[in-house]
């Protein structure tokens, strides 16, 4: 999933300070799963903002709504019924959702209420960790199912650096050394020999190298 964290309240307050009536929009997908911008978080942020402005003597009006998916124009259309009289929109979706809303409602200012972080997985309750950088040319088939691009701090493709210590990364003892994990896994699979095959320099074009990316499926595109 795409993970996110709510922005500091002070930053959000500064965005919406000039406005009287706000539409606060959550998303039912990734940001709900990582507890950053779903229905529940929309309710909490709404209360926090109203209380905060009330202390300053301002009665901020907030209309709350959570979409099934903010990155999909089909669902964004739901907002047309709620947009009348709204001065600004505050989105709790990832950056994709924020941009879809601003593309649809060109005359309304749209602000992000979360910082979009990374593509990751849940390690345990309340903990999410990065797993993929979307390099566009997946190496997992030759690295034992563990990604060195997203999980090695130096993005090393051919083995651990000299700072790998007791299975941990030199930059932070809370971070696993990706190459220790890869090596352990190759061993468990009886594939140690695979380690010595050199992974050649990566072509970054399928990643960000060739500019903003787009997938066009001719069989589906209208």
């Amino acid at each position, binding site marked *: 999933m795409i993970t996110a964290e709510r922005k500091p309240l002070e930053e959000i307050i500064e965005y919406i300070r000039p406005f009287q009536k706000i539409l606060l929009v959550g998303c039912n997908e990734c940001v709900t799963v990582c507890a950053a911008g779903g229905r529940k978080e929309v309710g909490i942020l709404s209360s926090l903002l109203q209380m905060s402005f009330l202390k300053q003597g301002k009665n901020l009006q907030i209309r709350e709504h959570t979409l099934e998916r903010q990155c999909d124009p089909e669902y964004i259309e739901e907002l047309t019924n709620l947009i009348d009289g709204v001065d600004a929109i505050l989105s709790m979706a990832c950056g994709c959702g924020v941009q879809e809303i601003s593309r649809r409602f060109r005359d309304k200012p749209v602000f992000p209420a979360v910082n979009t972080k990374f593509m990751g997985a849940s390690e345990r309750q309340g903990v999410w960790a990065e797993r993929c950088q979307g390099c566009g040319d997946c190496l997992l088939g030759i690295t034992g199912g563990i990604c060195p691009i997203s999980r090695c*701090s*130096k*993005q*090393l*493709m*051919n*083995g*651990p*650096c*000299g*700072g*790998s*210590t*007791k*299975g941990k990364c*030199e*930059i932070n003892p809370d971070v696993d*050394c990706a*190459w*220790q994990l890869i*090596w*352990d896994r190759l061993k468990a699979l009886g594939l*140690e020999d695979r*380690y*010595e095959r*050199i*992974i*050649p*320099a*990566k072509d*970054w074009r399928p990643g960000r190298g060739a500019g903003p990316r787009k997938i066009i499926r001719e069989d589906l595109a209208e």
Partner: protein
Amino acid sequence: MKTESVLEKMLISGNLAVTSECGPPRGAVPEKVRQKAELLRGYVDAVNVTDNQTAMVRMSSFAAAVILRQLGIHPILQMVTRDRNRLAMQSDIIGAYSHDINTMMCLSGDHPQFGDHPMAASVHDIDSIQFVQMVKKMRDEGKFQGGADIENAPKMFIGAAANPFADPFELRVARLAKKIAAGADFIQTQCIYNLDKFEKWMEGVRNRGLHEKCYILAGVTPIKTVGMARYMKNKVPGMDVPQAVVDRMAGVPKEKQAEEGIKICVETIERLKQVKGVAGFHIMAIEWEQKVAEIVKRAGLYPRPDIGI
């Protein structure tokens, strides 16, 4: 001979090679580079010029290496993948070669988090092994990494690093094999304090005949104080300083600790001379370059052999 490198000549001659390093200054003070270099003249065969080591901005290794070259000292250009993409690296390599720099070290570099620009983006377009491959391709095929021909291809003697003390230990010989397969001509190791572990690693290296495919220079660093020993033992990832070394430093009065550190360093070199497959020494006297001459002399590595350079 693959190159005109003096280091390559020394290694081929069968004599133990000696290299040291010069960390460029944090400012436009070329005289500091010259001062450090003069301390090493005649005592070492070639001098590593570090590239923004510990992820702190310093005079570029290329510029400092040119200063050394102008003094008639043979620089080993260090270059890290952290700060440059493949375009910048290759242009610096042909630039350096145009200034008679023919020996280099291909490294990934310390993570920015350890330096004074932790907010910087790391590049890591290629990794250290792919870097070695690239420099070899430039030299042996006369081609850029992207495939185009190079006019007067740079003939670099290619170095890489190895740390026998990092984890997982069982992978460390295989990692060396991979660097050699990529094209590394010589290796400089992490500083050695745990000799038993280093000897065990070298045994693995010899079992695969890797010492015959590549020259291995054993890394040593003299310890100045017991504080430095403790710091390296506890704080520097990938360093292995046995408690016995710390105790030995702690066992002498403060004013004699520097001498004890030099003694340990010289004894380490003497023992490493007995290890089959060690082709020389890389003496990293960090901000203590004035001691290199003494270490070289006391370790019986002086005068440097006359191989007609």
